[in-house]
């Protein structure tokens, strides 16, 4: 990890306006912003770790925990909500023992809610990694999850 970080930093100047591009590159590379990355960036830009965290936590695009192997996104847009999206989410939260925005302890799943995936006719919709599953039910979702190790 340290070498990769150094490589990313080398591509950027040492001015504070490079902070967000650096954070974006780090997130792209590692999937999240780790405390060690923040420390390295802090040294490189001469800005305190706390200030970097302040900036990055402002933006929804950055996350600070290691992502799970599979990302589950439950759509709660109007159509999906009406057709039971909320029930799906509740079942997932209970089944996985985590709430929205968290990762299971075994790093298997990430759970997130989204506002609309753009396919309301197929509602309720759940996205797992890059696959979209339509007309989802609690039973089918339970089965489906087993396929994602």
């Amino acid at each position, binding site marked *: 990890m340290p070498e990769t970080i150094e490589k990313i930093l080398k591509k950027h100047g040492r001015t504070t306006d490079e902070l967000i591009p650096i954070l974006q590159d780090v997130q792209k590379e590692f999937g999240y912003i780790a*405390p060690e990355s*923040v420390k390295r960036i*802090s*040294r490189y830009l*001469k*800005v*305190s*770790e*706390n*200030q*970097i*965290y*302040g*900036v990055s*936590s*402002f933006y929804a695009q950055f996350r*600070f925990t290691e992502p799970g192997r599979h990302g589950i996104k439950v759509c709660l847009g109007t159509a999906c909500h009406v057709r039971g999206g909320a029930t799906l989410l509740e079942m997932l939260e209970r089944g996985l023992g985590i709430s929205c925005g968290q990762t299971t302890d075994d790093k298997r799943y990430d759970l997130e809610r989204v506002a609309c995936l753009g396919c309301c006719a197929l509602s309720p919709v759940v996205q797992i990694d890059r696959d979209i599953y339509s007309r989802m039910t609690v039973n089918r979702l339970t089965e489906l999850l087993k396929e994602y190790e």
Partner: protein
Amino acid sequence: MTKEKKLSITIDNKKMEVRPNMTILQAARENSVYIPSLCILEHLPSYGACRLCVVEVDGLRGFPTSCTTPVEEGMVIRTDTAEVRSLRQEVLKLLLSEHPASCLFCGEQSECKDYQGTIRKVGVTTGCRYCPNDNRCELQLITEKVGLTETSYPVYYRNFPIEKEDPFYDRDYNLCILCGRCVRVCNDVRLNGTLSFKQRGKLTTIGPAFDRTHLDAGCEFCGACVTVCPTGALSAKVSKWYGRPDSQVGTTCVYCPVGCKVILQIKNDETIDALPDYDSPVDQGLVCVKGRFAIPEYVHSAKRYISPQRLTPIGYEDISWDKALDEAKERLSGIKPEDCLVVVSPQLSNEDLFVAQRFTREVMNSEEMFSLVITDLGADLVPFLDLVMHASSYDAINTAQGILAIGFDSTYGFTPIGIQIKAAARKGANLVTIGSYESNLDMLAETAHQTEPSHWAGMIDPLGKAMSGNGKTNIVIVGPDVFLGPERREALGRVIALRDVYKWKVIVAHPYTNLLGMLATGAFPGIKPGEVLKNGDKGSAVTIKGAAVYPDLQKKRKVVYVIGEARLDMVPPCDHLIYQNGLPPESGRKPDLILPACMFTETSGTTINAEGKVLPIQKAYEPFMKSKPDWWIMSGIAEKLQKRTFKYNSVQAIQGDIRKQIKGFFSMKKRLEFVRVGMKEGGEGTRDAALRGKRSPASREETYRGTPLASVVSGMKAIEERRRHE
């Protein structure tokens, strides 16, 4: 300075002349026109966050914020129209929609006080006024000034847990209005960067990264955020329930030689808090954790002696001062000079030190004044003193081109120096650090070397050579890890070479508060009062005898008289130990006679800081119980011994004698300048081994008058632990 052309403006129908380049808010405040603001901070650029300072300006659309609008010629400003008032009220209502408002709008407000007449803390906390800031709250004041008497919005209580896990201050972010003052003072004044806004929108909170504790996040615990907080969100643990102080006394912090001004907050003859003074020329209000938070608990420690005591076979017995002085007289009379050793603390005031040397020389006819500096530095005393006595003023850091910091970390001490270094580095100075651990300056350093102390000396020369030669000022900061480490001789020598050959300036960050005063007043073996001060045509060097400086610590004395020092492990064996201090000694050794001395808040005097400036120490209230000033006790014993040598009734009398004997001592404007000190005979080798054996591992601890701050100030324990094993 060229005279600036004044601008004429009108505020609320009053014509006035103001300087250009200022904001409407500044102009108004200078002319005593009140405009409310919750985010403005003196010494920092305007921020424009709270929107309370809106005004009307002819020709400008809408309602500009006066803190961000510069004055212009002919401007017509109205600060108190009906529209402005209602706008401010609305802004304040929105601000208060996340702030518990029971203390602001309550029908029972006027009677509330009457029903709270129980024991203090219980009474305050069980009422609905649970905020420690009640009655000294800026928000209350502004609500009153803005004329808001009720709010139409429901109050959203964020229900954050109160954060109490860090030392020295508690945080209740339910009371926070997110004005941003703490974040700005932490980042822009202290250049520390512990606090920042986290998240956004209604989830916004304040704190360090990754939910770390402040201690882990690098907080200096300087309390600057607590001082500027307009609400009760941030509050000092020691003083939070005390309410408004009765009075304030400006004095000098005596915990280290920086010489920061602190403004003691006094209530019922007790120091409840100590605040920084941003206008102080020495430290610019940049006090460290010790000055800000470690004073009240130390000076009012429950361990303080309440009366003179004498050791009897069945324990200690309280005795009167008259008896105590008689006892001291009995022990001291008729003994030979070499049978008595006087131990003086470098943390005493100049006046106390002056009397201590008179006592030793004139009453005991001895030169044996031993002190912590001699134990700590051993055979390397002379190069150390050479650096300390010819230290630069702190301002030199501002203009320095190159800064070399060796073994120096300013997180919990020497913050005014550390912050100036950080500021210089930000402006482009070449900052190089050397240390065995990561220091708080490393983040801003051009290069940070982390190596064992044994390598340091070898690095100083090449680094110094590489950094100098540009004709600009360079400065080296020598931290305690240098001169208290085992390889100090070599390192100190190299630093002296840097100063003498390459003309570097030097600042030594040492813990011996009034070491310069000790040397100047002559409370040091072989140095007469004023002898080391540069004074016109007098000699330019003083040579002291090594044999006199290093006493034989194996030899048993009849009496050892310890003044203001609590580490008795460095005291040689003796028949009779007289112990004069405020708090009990550190080791198990039992003094035979205890003379309770005042704290620096209870007597006046002066101290000399590391720059050589003589700074005042102010008495804030009468001494605790039967405590007496050090000079009073020494003078009392001297009188009892009937030597007719001296007798002092006041600090002024001592200062008069100092003035007579040491020319130019109290010309406050000037820095005192020192001559060179050399040593001959027996300065080396033999004695050093004995001394070194005497040095306890605790010598690196922050102490005052020998007592570790961590043993009396609750929060300092956590600080000390972190400082040591970091």
